[in-house]
């Protein structure tokens, strides 16, 4: 039998460490505990761990900080989070950092073992990977898969569950690649062709990954009359992408939407969640430039910057 992985449990409550140790040691894992992020970093520095299970809310050095450090310094170590506060935002943040899975607190032995086994499989399988498998893992890591399974289990008995599940799946993964659609097809017992037909029908769903920041430009009538086209073409020029595309550095995606219903502010652009009204090409680039100063420079090629200078 292959060597079982070494696990470090990080939590500011000793009782959590103890109960996890008890469960995992009985299955032959090597387990140690650390009472906080600082202690964990010291221990990991000395080596010998393949997996780290960590709490998120801890005094001094918290879980997210620890995860960031591991990802930077010991990228081969797999991370699972244990949390009593699975709020959407923290989970999302952790998912984006590339954790394998999470264990909700309090946990039963079977849940912990289940997640541990999967995590162990994951780090084992990580080294000799076929390129296409690697790609799948990258776009759809096990933690997201687990989250999606929970969503499917929640909604599968409801009538007309497909669209709500797809909406949640897109929230979790960011987009809907074929592997996600297949998973949903299986989970809801709907032919994959039908899943795809729905994904391709609605403009809300996308099969391409989005950038860090999503720019949505309103293509409604009021915005058209008040000159959104000029704004849009400037954004396209500056980012060198068309509608529906993402910049090469994955920083921005550009979307055109059918009327945001904020016609009083026309022309309108939405960056992430913020609605910006009365756009001009210059104002739009300034807003985008807050996130990427280089984009403003790129705009200078089309003469925008000189214009800004002269006007300023």
């Amino acid at each position, binding site marked *: 039998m292959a060597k079982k992985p070494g696990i470090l449990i990080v939590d500011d409550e000793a009782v959590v460490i103890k109960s996890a140790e008890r469960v995992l040691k009985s299955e032959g894992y090597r387990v140690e505990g650390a009472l906080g992020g600082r202690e964990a970093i010291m221990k990991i520095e000395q080596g010998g761990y393949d997996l780290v299970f960590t709490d998120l809310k801890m005094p001094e050095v918290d879980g997210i900080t620890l995860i960031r450090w591991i990802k930077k310094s010991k990228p081969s170590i797999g991370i699972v989070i244990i949390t009593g506060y699975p709020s959407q935002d923290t989970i999302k943040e952790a998912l984006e950092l590339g954790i394998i899975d999470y264990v909700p607190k309090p946990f039963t032995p079977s849940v912990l073992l289940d997640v541990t086994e999967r995590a162990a499989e994951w780090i084992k399988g990580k080294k000799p990977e076929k390129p296409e498998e690697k790609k799948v893992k990258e776009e759809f890591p096990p933690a997201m898969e687990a989250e999606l399974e929970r969503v499917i289990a929640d909604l599968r008995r409801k*009538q*007309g*569950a*497909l*669209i*709500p599940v*797809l*909406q949640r799946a897109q929230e979790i993964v960011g987009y809907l690649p074929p592997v996600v659609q297949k998973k949903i097809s299986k989970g809801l017992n709907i032919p994959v062709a*039908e899943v795809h*037909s*729905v994904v391709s*029908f*609605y*403009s*809300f*769903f996308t099969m391409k990954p989005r950038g860090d920041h999503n720019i949505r430009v309103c*293509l*409604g*009538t*009021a*915005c*058209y*009359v*008040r000159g959104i086209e*000029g704004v849009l073409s400037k954004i396209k020029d500056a980012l060198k992408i068309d509608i529906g595309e993402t910049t090469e550095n994955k920083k921005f995606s550009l979307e055109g*939407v*059918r*009327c*945001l*219903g*904020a*016609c*009083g*502010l*026309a022309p*309108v652009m939405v960056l992430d*969640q*913020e*609605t*910006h*009204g009365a756009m001009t090409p210059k104002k739009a680039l300034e807003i985008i430039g807050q996130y990427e100063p280089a984009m403003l420079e790129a705009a200078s090629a*089309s*003469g*925008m910057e*000189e*214009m800004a200078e*002269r*006007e300023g």
Partner: protein
Amino acid sequence: MNKLKIEDLQNIREKNKAEFALREGGYKAKVTVHMGTCGIAAGARSVMDALTGEITKNNIKDVIIASSGCAGLCGKEPIATVELLGQSPVKYCDLDKDKMQKIVAEHIIGGKVVEDYALPKKDDMPFFKNQELRVLRNVGFMDPESLEEYIARDGYQAAAKALTQMTQEEVIKVIKDSGLRGRGGAGFPTGLKWEFASKVKSDIKYMLCNGDEGDPGAFMDRSVMEADPYSVIEGMIIGAKAIGAHYGYIYVRAEYPLAVKRLQMAIDHATEAGLLGKNILDTGFDFELAIYLGAGAFVCGEETALMRSLEGKRGMPRPRPPFPAHKGLWDKPSVLNNVETLAQIAPIIINGSDWYRSFGTEKSAGTKVFALTGAVNNVGLVEVPMGIPLRTIIYDIGGGIRKGRKFKAVQMGGPSGGCIPEGLLETPVTYEDIVATGAIVGSGGMVVMDENTCMVGTAKFFLEFTADESCGKCTPCRVGTKILLDMLTDITEGRGKEEDIDTLLDLGRDIIATSLCGLGQTAPNPVLTTIKYFRDEYESHIKHNWCKAGVCRNLTTFMIDEKLCKGCGACLRACPSKAITGEKKKLHKIIQELCVHCRTCYEACKFKSIKILPAKFEGDPSELVGATTETETKKGEA
């Protein structure tokens, strides 16, 4: 909250009124910050923060701070209303942090209105004076998240009346007699729709609300859902009673996050208070309601498509009959009403059908909300009695055209509607009269266009929309809209042929005659109306390669009129491609080889010295007849 009974409503109403009425010894003032999507985007949050900050800092205890929905005058957001004991309410507009601080100091503490920021009184301001608020009766006047406040404003009176004192038939009769017609677009009589569904026998029926407001340029449903969610829910309860349904869905666009949030909150509060769910108001009537998020498809505004989408499928329409009143959602009898329609049900039940008919015309009764946008001065949401002339809406309420420009057309009904020219501005807004012009009332979008809008370009804009949103099920719509779009693209890019205009007309009529659903049956309207009223623009594009509005880039030459240029340098500074040369105080010149036809200079010139001429025009602009914009021609003649 405990489950409420009917007698509790009265108590809540009195308690709320007693507590929050401004009086000596109680609260002395109320400040409402209007926080709809537009308001928030314009900065209402920082205004609210400034307000609460100042009130706390000055340790003021007798002022009510409230937030509410849109005040209607979207173009002047952020807006706040200040009510002071013994004074009539004052609305402040275009607010920011500093202005709010000044208002707190001078008006709320000092008692003196800050005239610089205040809007004129309601009766002195045509925007408000000409309106009649029924659908929007609560919008902007109450906290949309407070069930108590809704009850205090006579909320749930109508539901209580319908559930205890009226039979199904009586409810249907009142709505039928009122003449209320569906406000989503087609204008089908609401009472009749309910009657059909009530007569079908079935174990399960569905009462549905269409909040998939897809027409670009219309946003009244968003505003109502955000600012008065309870009135939509109450309308649905009454409708459910009328048809005998116990389950319902509100289908909302995912593009409206704030509306979704407020509706969900309202459903939760109402369910908790026994105003939704089992045994509503202890009357024995059950109605369970849930929200369903749309996923972005315009065609889902069509009823059969919306029901398919609710089932989790591609939202494609199907032929009728069977009508949804017989076979709708999951093949059960279903009624789908629009948000604006549902928001007016409660007052009709309370006040009766004659009250409702006191406004409007015989066939188009009551009031209609319009989203007035585009090139008008007062952009906003306005509710007017049906039957008033378009001119009143655009010139009195809307305050005329921005920047003193000339009116060209008003677009009504979104992609299903058409463009109405100046000559027809006396047309009364009723379903029949608007249809006679070639447009439709639709959901109530009213986009005003000025001389700077190219009508061929406008038709192309709408066809891009419908060609993209066509679901693809029936050929006339899928292929037809694409061909219309290709031809319009050719015309705007200088490849138009003279016979194109007739082909557009013929093909348009065929698409209308043969399409399956409302999307295809109305898609050619923007083309047909623009040809009907602005044929000269099409001809000028095709025959003279000339887009007089200066929008179609291939069909323009921008030149500076030597007689008018003052050499101020405004165009030179504005030109993004550095195509303009010339020294200060001397004649400027556009280097045609560098010009990208973006018309930035045209907008920048204060002396109207930039002329829009036909493509590849060479020579002296003043020699060309009509080589000026329409406004200037007029001026020249005068």
